[in-house]
């Protein structure tokens, strides 16, 4: 099961990229994606508790199941205005 994940702000800088592909087994959840990213990029550890996650433009919880082809987005605390 594959899809795309977008990184913003500090998260983008820690990942060194604005996006990446994800490839995880059927039945994976949002938290599995986060764990796999942290495994390859331990630097995101401190940010992880503060991230919001969107799937296809809607906020989702850590236990939400990933959908095949979904666009995920990892969103640090926001500071617009």
């Amino acid at each position, binding site marked *: 099961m594959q899809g795309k994940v*977008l990184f*913003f*702000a*500090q998260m983008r800088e820690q990942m060194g990229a604005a996006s990446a592909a994800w490839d995880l087994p059927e039945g994976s959840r949002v938290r599995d994606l986060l764990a796999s990213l942290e495994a390859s990029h331990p630097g995101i550890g401190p940010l992880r508790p*503060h991230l*919001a996650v*969107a799937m296809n*433009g809607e*906020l989702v919880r850590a236990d939400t199941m990933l959908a095949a082809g979904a666009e995920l*987005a990892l*969103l*640090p*605390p*926001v*500071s*617009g*205005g």
Partner: protein
Amino acid sequence: MAELTLAAIDQAALQARAIRADCGAVIVFLGTTRDHHDGRRVLQLAYEAYESMALEALARLEREACERFEVSHCEVTHRLGEVPPTEASVVVVVSAAHRGAAYEASRWVMDELKARVPIWKRERFEDGNSQWVDGTPLR
């Protein structure tokens, strides 16, 4: 209509759309870039957004403002990219028959915008450093 723009915000156009013959009050809020933060001199702010989701969130704020308050019109534009000091990073225009509702709606939109719209602000300081401004968990 909610808008994100890399150029200077066109306040005149926003305001022209807000002024209506059945409204007695128009409130324009401009969020402008300050030149200091915690005692350090800020040369420039830069904003980035998850654009599709941010636009949808701004449009939802406009709609909710009209539902929650007795206002006829609410429009928000947020600038992205570099914003020099004294230029507006965000403009909210609200019009209403009576001013009380216009003040409340404008303030509500700004309060909600800070927590509900995926936009991030980075400050660049005179000393060459830059940092992401401490934010609010998105909800």
